[in-house]
C-alpha cells in the first residue's frame, strides 16, 4: 500500500530551494507554470539530476535558475547559451538546460542562439515567451505581437514579431516545439522528450505576463489562458513557416521538428581529435 506524502510536501519540493519559495513571480505569471513543468519533466525523464545544470540569463524567466536545487548559473543578459556551450564542451556528461525568456534569448542573445543551434550543441533551451521584457516593466520585445501596447510602444508595436520555431529550425535545431502554459501536460512531455534527445532542442512556451504585458493589452491572466484555450490549434509537424504569431488568425502549437543530427561534441571528437588517440582522450 502506497504511503501518502506529508500533506505539506509538494512533489517537487525536493527539486526546489525551499528557503526561496514563494518565488518572485507575479500572481498569474506563466513562468511559474513553465518552470514547474520543466522540473516535473526533469524528474520523469530519469536523467541523472546530479549531472544536470540549469543556466539562465537576465529577466523574470532568468530567475528560474535560482529556484532549482541543482547546480544553476544565473549569467549575464543574453549570454546563457554561450555559457552553456562552454559548460557542455568542457564536460559533455552534463545535462544542460537553458531556461530563459524571449528577450534574453532572441534579442540580445539572438546571435548566440542561432550559432548554438547551427552547431547542434546538445542542450535543451526552454524559452518562456511572454511577449515583452517583463522584469524591466514591460518593454517591447522581438516577440511582441503587431500593434500590442508596451511601455516603449505606447502607440502600439509597429514591428512584426519573430516566428521563433522557424528561426530555430532555420538555424539547425533538431527538436522544435511550441506549447502554452495551459497545455501543461503536452509541455511536460515535450520537455521530457527534449531532455532525452541528443542535440539542440528548443521549446517555446507561451505564457501570460499579467502585470506588465497583460495590463497594457487588456488581458487579465485568466483572459490570456482563455486565449490559449480558444485561439490555438494543435498541429504537430506543421511547417515552421506557418507558425507566425498572430492571435487573430490563431496560434499553432505542437511538435514541429524532431530530427537527428550528430551533436557539436560528437562532430568535434570525430573531426578534430587525433583518431588513434580518441579512445584515450575519451577515457581521460
Amino acid at each position, binding site marked *: 500500500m502506497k504511503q501518502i506524502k506529508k500533506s505539506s510536501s509538494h512533489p517537487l519540493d525536493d527539486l526546489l530551494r525551499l528557503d526561496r519559495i514563494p518565488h518572485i513571480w507575479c500572481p498569474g505569471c506563466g513562468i511559474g507554470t513553465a518552470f514547474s513543468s520543466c522540473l516535473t519533466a526533469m524528474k520523469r525523464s530519469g536523467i541523472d539530476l546530479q549531472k544536470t545544470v540549469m543556466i539562465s540569463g537576465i529577466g523574470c524567466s532568468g530567475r528560474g535558475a535560482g529556484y532549482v536545487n541543482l547546480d544553476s548559473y544565473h549569467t549575464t543578459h543574453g549570454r546563457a547559451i554561450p555559457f552553456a556551450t562552454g559548460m557542455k564542451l568542457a*564536460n559533455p556528461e552534463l545535462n544542460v538546460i537553458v531556461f530563459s525568456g524571449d528577450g534574453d534569448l532572441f534579442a540580445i542573445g539572438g546571435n548566440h542562439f542561432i550559432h548554438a543551434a547551427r552547431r547542434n550543441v546538445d542542450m535543451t533551451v526552454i524559452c518562456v515567451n511572454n511577449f515583452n521584457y517583463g522584469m524591466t516593466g514591460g518593454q517591447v520585445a522581438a516577440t511582441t505581437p503587431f500593434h500590442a501596447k508596451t511601455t516603449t510602444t505606447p502607440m502600439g508595436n509597429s514591428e512584426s514579431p519573430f516566428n521563433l520555431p522557424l528561426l530555430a529550425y532555420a538555424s539547425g535545431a533538431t527538436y522544435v516545439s511550441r506549447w502554452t502554459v495551459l497545455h501543461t501536460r503536452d509541455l511536460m512531455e515535450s520537455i521530457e522528450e527534449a531532455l532525452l534527445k541528443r542535440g539542440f532542442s528548443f521549446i517555446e512556451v507561451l505564457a501570460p505576463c499579467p502585470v506588465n504585458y497583460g495590463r497594457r493589452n487588456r488581458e487579465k491572466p485568466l483572459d490570456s489562458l482563455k486565449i490559449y484555450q480558444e485561439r490555438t490549434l494543435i498541429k504537430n509537424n506543421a511547417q515552421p513557416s506557418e507558425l507566425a504569431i498572430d492571435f487573430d488568425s490563431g496560434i499553432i502549437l505542437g511538435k514541429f521538428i524532431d530530427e537527428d543530427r550528430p551533436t557539436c561534441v560528437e562532430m568535434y571528437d570525430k573531426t578534430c581529435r587525433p583518431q588513434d588517440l580518441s579512445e584515450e582522450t575519451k577515457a581521460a
Partner: protein
Amino acid sequence: MRPTVLTGDHFFTGDVACAEGAIAAGCRFFGGYPITPATEVAEHMSARLPEVGGTFIQMEDEIGAIASVIGASCAGVKSMTATSGPGFSLMMENIGLAICIEAPCVIANVQRAGPSTGLPTLGAQSDMMQARWGSHGHYEIIALAPASPQEIFYQTVTAFNLSETYRLPVLIMTDEMIGHLSERVTIPDAKKIKTIFRKRPKGRKDRFKPYRPDPDGIAPMPIAGDGYNIHMTGLTHDERGYPVMTADAQYEMMERLISKVRKNLDDIIRTESYRLDDAEIVIVSYGVSSRTCLAAVDEAREQGIKAGLLKLITVWPFPEDRIRNLAEKVKGFVTVEINLGQIHLEVERCAGGKAPAFLVGHPGGTIISPERVIRTLKEAF
C-alpha cells in the same frame, strides 16, 4: 604526436608562446574569436588542444568567447581566451561576471593601437587602465605584462596559477610587438612547471555555502556535477550564493571580493629591478617598453645619470607601496609606456608629490626608442 609540454628550445612568436604556456599550465578549453594580432593564439590552440585532450571552439563573437570560457571554468576546466582592444571592450561585461561569481579564467589582450579599430597590425600599451577599470562597478583584478615571448610563456603559467588560487580572471597584457615577435623560448621540463588547481570543497554536500570563505579569504569552488547543488549569480549575493538586494549584502560581498586581492598583495605583486639600488631616477615600465628602458638605463649610466629600472610584472594590482617608498629617496620617476599616460597617472599618484613624475609616451604604433628616454631624463633632471 607532440607531448603536452614541449620541453626544449624553440623559436616561437609571443602568441604561440602564450598558447604553449597555457597548455603547460593545464588549460584545456579555449573559446576564441579571430582578431589581429591575437588570432595566432587561437590558431595554435585549435591545433594543440585536441592533441592534449582539450577542446577548442571558435565562438560567434568575443562575448560568446568569454561566456563560453566562464562556463567551461564552472564545469571544472582551466580555460582562456585571447583578444585585442575591440574584443577586450566587448568582453568587459562578462569579465565582471567572472569576478562576481569568482570563476578562474585567463584573458590575454594582445594590445594594439586604439581607440576603436585603430591600427590592427601595430601594437601599443594603451589598454592598461581599461584592464583595471574596464568593467562596470568596483572590483580588483590581476593583470600581468610580459616583455618577451619567453616571459609570455612563464607569465601565462603564472596567470593560470593566480587565477586558480584567487578565483579571479587574470589578464595577460601583451602587445602586437611581442605577440608577433619570434624569439627563443626555452620550455622547461614538465615536472618543473608548478600548476595549481582551485581549492575543492570538502565535507557535507547539502546546505553547502559556495561563497563562505576559508580563513585565507577564498572559498573552495565546487564544480558543476559534483553534487553540491550550488547557485551562482551575477547579482549581488550572500554566502549561499542567493541574490540579496540590500546595501549590507553588497558591502559584505565587495569586502570579500576586494580583500581577496588586497590582503595577498605580497603574493600577487611581482616586479623586477635593474640597477635600482643606487638609482636617483626611477624609470617605471612594463611589457615591451621595459626592453627599451634596459638599454636606456645603461646608456644613461654611461652618461653619468644614475637611472634604474623598476619593471612591473604585475601591473595590477599596482605596486603602490614600492613607489611610495622610492618616492622618499629618489629625485623623480619617468614612466615609459606606449600610451599617453596611464600607468604614469598611478606613479604620479603614488609619488604623492614627494618626487616629480614624467612620462615618455606615444599614442601607439611603434616602440619607444631609448634616445627619447635619455632625452627626457636629461631635460627633466
